[in-house]
């Protein structure tokens, strides 16, 4: 299988702070690949190295078969990059920003119109508006249009959905999936675990290290422990439920997940149904009746927290 990104043992430090501590991975051609991790995990540093904006201290990175250090001028013409911070000209209009970016790459908006139309058409009615006066969602669409206007062969996006509401996030991912379906290779970073499902494969990254790389639905398979969901904080007393669960001898971890609690049982390999039954009994013994306990498949956030716990 052909790869558009091949990275080996990449490291970068800023003074005493190690931003990346030797990461290796590859991104296949035509893949939508996600880096999932919180602020400070190293996502931005990694994307800046891959887009030739930052030199690594160690290791190698090839994008489109070219070295990010020695072939940086060629690569800059061939990659698209949407940085995390809004970095268009706020005092230029929507149309002016777009034609500026087109002209920098020696092309025109007219020549590229078909390519960017699915996204640009949504903001075209506001072509004369200053970019600084756009709403958050429209700014993103403009930034994405600008990142695509020179016909890049691969697109890098740094946290395009951070601080964006749940509805706009879904719409943005719909756009990315359309671009992927049209054949573009896409590397995107996000702090939102629930966005993993939108990617072919994801890398979980924390503290400058990659914790795991896999398809989203495969991540849960290696969780290693039975996971139980506890519903129904009896009498609304969620605090007591949490305390009781954490006090149980077989509790590996207990975390709130929206309206439920996730209880990871230490007894790897045990029958989850029997464990659920045990847990319900333990709760009843503690005077907490009426709870519901059921075995569930671990989601990406369960996996991430478990790997974080192991790493620290």
């Amino acid at each position: 299988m052909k790869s558009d990104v091949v990275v080996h043992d990449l490291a970068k430090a800023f003074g005493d702070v190690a931003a990346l501590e030797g990461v290796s991975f590859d991104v296949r051609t035509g893949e939508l690949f996600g880096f999932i991790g919180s602020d400070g995990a190293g996502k931005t540093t990694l994307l800046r190295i891959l887009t030739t904006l930052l030199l690594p201290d160690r290791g190698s990175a090839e994008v489109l078969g070219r070295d990010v250090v020695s072939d940086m001028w060629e690569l800059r013409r061939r990659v698209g990059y949407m940085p995390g911070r809004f970095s268009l000209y706020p005092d230029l209009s929507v149309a002016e920003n777009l034609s500026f970016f087109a002209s920098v790459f020696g092309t025109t908006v007219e020549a590229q119109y078909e390519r960017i139309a699915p996204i640009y058409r949504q903001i075209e009615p506001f072509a004369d508006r200053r970019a600084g006066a756009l709403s958050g969602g429209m700014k993103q669409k403009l930034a994405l249009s600008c990142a695509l206007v020179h016909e890049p062969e691969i697109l890098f996006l740094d946290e395009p959905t951070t601080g964006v509401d749940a509805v706009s996030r879904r719409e943005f991912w719909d756009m990315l999936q359309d671009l992927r379906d049209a054949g573009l290779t896409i590397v995107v970073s996000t702090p939102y675990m629930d966005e993993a499902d939108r990617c072919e494969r994801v890398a979980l990254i924390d503290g400058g290290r990659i914790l795991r790389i896999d398809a989203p639905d495969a991540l849960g398979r290696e969780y290693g422990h039975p996971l139980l969901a506890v519903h129904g904080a009896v009498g609304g007393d969620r605090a007591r439920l949490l305390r009781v669960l954490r006090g149980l001898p077989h509790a590996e971890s207990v975390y709130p997940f929206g309206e439920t609690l996730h209880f990871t049982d230490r007894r790897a390999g045990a029958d989850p149904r029997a464990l659920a039954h045990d847990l319900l009994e333990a709760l009843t013994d503690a005077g907490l009746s009426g709870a519901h306990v059921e075995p569930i498949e671990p989601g990406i956030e369960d996996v991430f927290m478990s790997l974080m716990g192991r790493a620290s």
Partner: protein
Amino acid sequence: MSDWSASAPVSAMGTRDPAIRVRGLTRRFGDFTAVDAISFDVAAGEVFGFLGANGAGKTTAIRMLTGLLAPTDGEATVAGRDIRTEPDAIKRAIGYMSQKFSLYEDLTPRENIQLYGGIYGLARSEIRARGERLLSRLGLEGAAGELVGSLPLGWKQKLAFSVALLHEPGIVFLDEPTGGVDPITRRQFWEMIYEAAASGTTVFVTTHYMDEAEYCDRLSIMVEGRIAALGTPDELKDEHTAGSIEDVFVRLARGDGAAGAHP
């Protein structure tokens, strides 16, 4: 890490005066109505989630409630003070932190504590005592002399929240306090929120994480300047026959007509 508080949700109909009382609050910018006659109460000690899509008017509403922006119409009291006539008293009575602005990065945690304590008029001995308590509770004594900018984001946000509570305000406004924070720290942060609420502090919080919306006693969802939904998480899910707050949110924010049509 301590447990989540055992505080039962306080009813907005309780006997105590509400911590926040909003009636017909409106803000227009030229022809544009950013906040359109919103009304709600937040009870003392309640964890109140204030949700809405980008551009729905949340920030404008929060700026009015924190005394930073005068309303065009309507009224509101925060901690018993009128936002029109006593905005400065409100600023003293509340705590505030946001993801975008929390602490001075080029000062140490201890210097930040001294600065904020001073701004809120605490006595020097009081600042020292509360500051040391705060640092030891967070396990930050060792890092008290390092610049805040060098701390991991999770620590920074927990420190910022504690500093926002330093002058023991009755109400604290948290504007996306957990944005970008790792999932374990995010949960620890909510345990701190519950602790504050258990000790009587009213918490007014915005978030884009829909699982966090489920942790609120009650929440409101703003759509185009109006409050489109208000109630406990369970009430909102029942009302909209939805499985999660995310579903409720997406339906309301997209408008009911478009909900099914979207790919």
